[in-house]
């Protein structure tokens, strides 16, 4: 098991956002987490790499608990792609990708740049390698941020609503890159309502509601015959399946 998430609890003040969430991801799998907003999906992702430390529960990567050793070292294995990209404003696209390998992995300048160009190639952004983030569209910025994640050669990439800050016409290019990664065998845990990606690239859909996992299963099964009324309602609201909600 590549990623094990066990019994994560998180509370903000009196609101319990996560009420004991467990899930596993096998190497090469991609799983998509869906559910109504405010249901703890993003919090769960942030708890997994301890950007938000959970109140309770464990996260294991390749069987090693991520807080047991050097958290920074463990985070290299868990790349994170943010909803609003968070590219580094002062660095050109290629340097956004190279800065991690250079400063964290200690690569020399030339090797880091070569690696960065290869990763930009993977996301179709080589032509804009010398552009600053402010000179790129949202979709392009998100593709660069995916390249930045790839350059750390992580075991898993966590995607936190990677397309929801994008104009509708720009989501396609990002989804295409993500599909390609999934078919290349990258292990991915994705919070997203992108039905196209979920249908074609996900091995499993996890449906969350009210801080719990309500149900999970292969996309064809979950979309065609959801077990819970809440799932049905949600799917029909985002325009998918849910025979009669």
């Amino acid at each position, binding site marked *: 098991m590549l990623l094990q998430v066990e019994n994560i609890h998180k509370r903000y003040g009196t609101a319990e956002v996560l009420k004991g969430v467990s899930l596993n991801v096998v190497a090469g799998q991609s799983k998509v987490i869906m559910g109504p907003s405010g249901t703890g999906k993003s919090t769960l992702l942030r708890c997994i*790499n301890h*950007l938000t430390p959970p109140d309770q529960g464990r996260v294991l990567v390749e069987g090693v608990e991520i807080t047991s050793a050097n958290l*920074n*070292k*463990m*985070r*290299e294995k*868990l*790349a*994170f792609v*943010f909803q*609003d990209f*968070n*590219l*580094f*404003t*002062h660095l050109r696209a290629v340097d956004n990708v190279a*800065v*991690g390998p250079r*400063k*964290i992995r200690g690569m020399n300048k030339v090797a880091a740049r070569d690696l960065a160009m290869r990763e930009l190639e993977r996301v179709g952004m080589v032509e804009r390698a010398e552009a*600053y*983030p*402010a*000179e790129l569209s949202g979709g392009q910025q998100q593709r660069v*941020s995916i390249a*930045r*994640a790839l350059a*750390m050669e992580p075991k898993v990439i966590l995607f936190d609503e990677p397309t929801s800050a994008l104009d509708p016409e720009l989501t396609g290019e990002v989804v295409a890159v993500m599909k390609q990664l999934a078919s290349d065998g990258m292990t991915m845990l994705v919070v997203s309502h992108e039905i196209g990606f979920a249908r074609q690239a996900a091995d499993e859909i996890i449906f969350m509601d009210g801080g719990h996992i309500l149900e999970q299963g292969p996309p064809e099964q979950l979309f065609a015959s959801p077990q819970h009324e809440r799932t049905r309602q949600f799917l029909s609201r985002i325009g998918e399946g849910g025979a009669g909600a």
Partner: protein
Amino acid sequence: MSEFLEFGAEHLPYILEGLPITLGLWALAMAIGALFGLLLAWARLYGNKLIYGAATAYVEIFRGTPMLVQMLFIYLGLPEIGIVFDPFTAAVIAIGLNTSAYQAEYFRGAIRSIPRGQLQAARAMGMSQFQGLRWIILPQALRRVIPQWSNEAILELKYTSIAYAIGVSELTARAEKIGYETFMFFEVFMLLALIYIVLTGTVAQILQFLEKRTAIPGL
């Protein structure tokens, strides 16, 4: 006018011997101010309660009292408890500590203006807090702080004239000396003002050039 030029030609060389002193005071004080200022900004942003409190008290004390008083205290007050500085050193310390309190606030504001998400992205990649600040936040904050820092640099360049009060032989002290020798105070202080105008104008130009050179779209 020709009298003024003659006066200038005669006394300018003597006054300008104070130029290296003025510039030395200024450069050393600004360097101390930048270094301490960054540390103070760090302390106020990321320090625990004790460190935050100490840094805040420092900033308030140095911003809330006149620089001349600080300088006199360091030069005349500290010897009473056995700490003795020559006038130049005392002036550098006073101006440096004073400007560090102001620079700290400029640095703090600039650091806070960088979107938090970028530090989170750095941490998520596996950077330590220090690496994130060093490689991601600081390069951006330093660019953003240049306009305010330029104002502060020009202000401090003028403030070096206070050092004349403790006997540092910088531009103002030398001009005053010429004044008392010639009793041509009008001419000598006009001349001195001209020298300061050229200095501050040059520094402003250089810093503006630096700002343009380091500019990045979107920052």
